[in-house]
Every structure is written in structure tokens, then in C-alpha cells.
């Protein structure tokens, strides 16, 4: 492990943990503007986290250790995911530990833990949330894998750093397969991050909530960690999207100095992505839970079409 590799890995983790709530704040701000509301400050999520960390944590009498450990596991998984995804540099010592397939597994691990913790208390809402989360997970994961596969067909590798290096260093070519995969990825990330057509992060209405139902029994520092983890997940998904479809600006292993330029590029790309996310959410309405399979089935189909197009045109 080289010193620059270690440094870029460390910087990347710190940037991810620090910037993730800012991205959530930016999305919320754009959301409010688009709905003609006066927007909360950009650092509202940080204030929220600070408030929650200061509060006392109330835990149900019969809650097990799993319930208390789950927020830390969730947070840990998301930090590791952010460490693996090449956001600023492709020179990451941790990246060989997990390629794209293992990354999907990492998200699945977090999902299993949070669902188990939601069922741990035994309340109706927790298990309802767990069921819905599992339903969405089992539909979204194959679609996500297909998206990653169609991107990996270009570089003949499932390693994210290799995919990004291949895409960055080639001259600008238009990959029609990636366009399909991009649409599919957007749909999957909306579902995975509990955003509007699938779930509404702002609601506490029992008929519609999924992610909020899972974390309903949490309070204080545990809730803060879960909120932070949710922000990190959004950040991670945005960065996967940027790495696969707009990888320009990411520093290569040979040029660690370009990391200085990579950060403003990342912030710029995330700002645009966050605005587009808010726009998409404002324009669409929450769908019924049994319409979600159709939505994610379409995503899966698009990803498969993307892969087929890639195979047809490049082989």
C-alpha cells in the first residue's frame, strides 16, 4: 500500500462522511424551492444530527442487543461502501476488497440488519417496514446487478476502480448500452434510497412509509446514526452513478495531485445530481406499493436491454 493510496483512501472516507448530510440538505433545499416553499438552511441536516446526538436515547424494554447494534452496523456498512466507490481517486487500497457484486452484497447486509432490528421490538410498523424493505430489496438488487454488469462489459471487469479508469482514459465514446443502464440505475436508486415514486422520506402515513417505518422505534443517537447512514447511502448511490456514467474528473492512480481538482468536480456533479433528484421527485407522485414491482421490473428490463445492446455493438 503506497502512502498516496492510503492518503486518498482516508480523504475519500472523511469527505464522504462529512459531505453526505450536505447532499441531503441540498436535495431538501431544492425540493423546497421547487415547491415554492422557503427552504431550510443547507446545514439543517448537521443541526438535526447534532440535536439527535445530544438527546437521550429511548429504547423499548424488551429490545435486544441487535436493536442497539444495528445503527452502528448500518453506519459501518455505508462508510465502507463509500470507501470502495471511487469518488475522488481510483488509487484506493480498500477497493480490491469488494468489486461491484460484493458492493451490492454490502448494501444487502445493511438491509438485513435494519430489517431484523425493526422486527426486534415486535411492533406492527416495524415488521411492516421490514417486509416492504425486503420486497423492494429483492426486486432492486437484480436490476442493480444488471446495471453494474452492463457497465462492466465495457471494461471487462467488475472492479469499480477499473471500470472508472477505463471510462476516463478512453476518448469520448457514446455507449448506447450505458444510456439504458443509466435510466435503470436512476430508477433503482430512487427505490433503494426511499425517494418519491417508491417511498416518501417526509411522510409518517402508515399506508405509504417504508424506510420511516423501519426506524420508527429509534431515537437519540441511534436515530442520528441511521439518518447519517441514509445520507451516506444516498451519497454512495450518487457516487456510483457518477462513477459509471459521468466519471470525468476522478484522479487516477498515477496522478494523485489531480485529487485537488477532483473534489470541486465531485461537488459540482453532486449539486447537479441533487437538483435533478429533487426535480424528479417533485414531478412524480408516490405510487402504490404493488405498482413498485412494475417500476422495478421495468428497471430490470432496461438494464438487460442495455447489456444486450452493449453485447451486440461491441462484440
Amino acid at each position, binding site marked *: 500500500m503506497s502512502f498516496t493510496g492510503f492518503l486518498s483512501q482516508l480523504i475519500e472516507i472523511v469527505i464522504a462522511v462529512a459531505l453526505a448530510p450536505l447532499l441531503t440538505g441540498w436535495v431538501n433545499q431544492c425540493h423546497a424551492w421547487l415547491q415554492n416553499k422557503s427552504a431550510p438552511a443547507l446545514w439543517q441536516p448537521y443541526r438535526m444530527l447534532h440535536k439527535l446526538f*445530544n438527546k437521550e436515547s429511548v429504547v423499548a424494554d424488551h429490545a435486544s442487543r441487535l436493536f442497539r447494534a444495528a445503527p452502528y452496523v448500518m453506519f459501518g456498512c455505508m462508510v465502507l461502501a463509500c470507501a470502495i466507490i471511487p469518488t475522488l481517486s481510483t488509487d484506493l487500497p480498500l477497493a480490491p476488497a469488494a468489486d461491484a457484486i460484493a458492493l451490492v452484497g454490502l448494501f444487502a447486509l445493511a438491509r438485513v440488519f435494519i430489517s431484523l432490528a425493526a422486527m426486534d421490538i415486535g411492533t406492527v410498523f416495524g415488521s411492516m417496514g421490514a417486509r416492504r424493505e425486503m420486497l423492494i430489496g429483492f426486486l432492486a438488487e437484480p436490476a442493480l446487478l444488471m446495471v453494474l454488469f452492463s457497465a462492466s462489459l465495457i471494461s471487462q471487469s467488475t472492479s469499480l476502480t477499473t471500470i472508472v479508469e477505463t471510462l476516463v482514459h478512453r476518448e469520448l465514446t457514446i455507449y448506447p448500452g450505458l444510456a439504458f443502464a443509466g435510466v435503470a440505475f436512476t430508477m433503482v436508486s430512487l427505490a433503494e434510497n426511499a425517494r418519491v415514486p417508491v417511498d416518501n422520506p417526509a411522510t409518517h402515513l402508515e399506508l405509504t412509509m417504508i424506510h420511516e417505518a423501519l426506524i420508527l422505534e429509534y431515537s437519540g443517537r441511534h436515530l442520528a*446514526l441511521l439518518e447519517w447512514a441514509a445520507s451516506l447511502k444516498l451519497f454512495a448511490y450518487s457516487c456510483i452513478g457518477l462513477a459509471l456514467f459521468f466519471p470525468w474528473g476522478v484522479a487516477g492512480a498515477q496522478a494523485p495531485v489531480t485529487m485537488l481538482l477532483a473534489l470541486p468536480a465531485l461537488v459540482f456533479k453532486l449539486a447537479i445530481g441533487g437538483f435533478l433528484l429533487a426535480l424528479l421527485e417533485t414531478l412524480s407522485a408516490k405510487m402504490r406499493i404493488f405498482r413498485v414491482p412494475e417500476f422495478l421490473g421495468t428497471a430490470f428490463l432496461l438494464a438487460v436491454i442495455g447489456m444486450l445492446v452493449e453485447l451486440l455493438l461491441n462484440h
Partner: protein
Amino acid sequence: MVWLVLGCVALGLLPVQFIQLIDPVTQQLVASGLGAGAAASGWLLAPNSLAQASYGPVIFLLGILASFALAYLLVRMFYHGRLRRGLPWACGFPWATARMQDTAEGFGQPIRQIFDPFFRMRRELPTSLDEQPRYRVTIEDHFWYWLYVPIVDLTNYLARLFATMQQGRISVYLLYSFVTLVATLLLVMQ
């Protein structure tokens, strides 16, 4: 049970060593294996090359454990560890009874609903007025009816036919033998 779980965990953490262990079997069966390639990359499982695909379960686990521990320590360091035990909130609904208990059904039901066209499903749904509510669902697949049931029917029909042939008198069997003999002779003469 615990041993099986531990076995699974060990298998997940040490895939490289396990692949080397079962490599002779794959060598004998298909005359090629991953053993040598897997051994070359040490703790990382990289079937072809590190740039193509890799997975390091131990680093993975250590990464999660390290961020878990770091998060725990930092939260304790900068904030407090106060915790209060109380009744579960459950959206302010305290009258939960054993009848409302959740089962695994809730996880399977949506999946069955989605793949409804692939199954032949019969549901017995209770009404809210039932004294002893009973929910039952039986699932069969279409293939059983499309593929296997016709074969079973044909076999049964043939079996019945042979059974009737077997339930004759000695004179009938002699007649069968005689007819067979004549038919064979005619065939040989030609």
C-alpha cells in the same frame, strides 16, 4: 445448528483456503481449477486477475468492524451514552395482542402476489366476524398440471388396460399365446 452457522461464517471468511481444499476434485472432474490462481492473490479472492474481479472477505469484515467501533467510540467521546428504557412507541398503539402477531407469511405474500401468474394458488381468507379466524393458502405450480398430470393419466390408463388383460382365464391366455405364435410364424415366413 451453531456448528452449521460457524461453518458458513468460516466458509465466507476463508474462500481462498476452501477453494484450494476442493481444487483436486475440480481438477479430476473438469481438468482445470481455480486453486493456483486463488493462491497467488493471497487473502483476496481474485479468480482471474485483481483488475477484473476481487473479493476480500476478511478486509470486508475488518472494515465494517473498524467503522462500527470507530462510530461507537466517537459517539461516546463527543456525546453522552445516556439510555432510557421504556414502552415501545408503536405509533401510540398499546393494545397489541398475540392475535396481531406477525408471521413469516408477511414476507412471502408480496412475492407470491407479484409472481401470481406463475402459481396456481388457492386462498382461504377469514372475515373479521369469524370466531376462530383461519387463513390458509395452498400453492401449486402450473407445470404439475401441464406436464406431469398428463403423463400420470396416461400411465394410469395403460396400467388399467394391462390389468384387464391380466385378469383372464387360462383359456384366454392360451388364445393370446396361440395368436402370438401364428403372428410370429406369418412374420417369419415372409
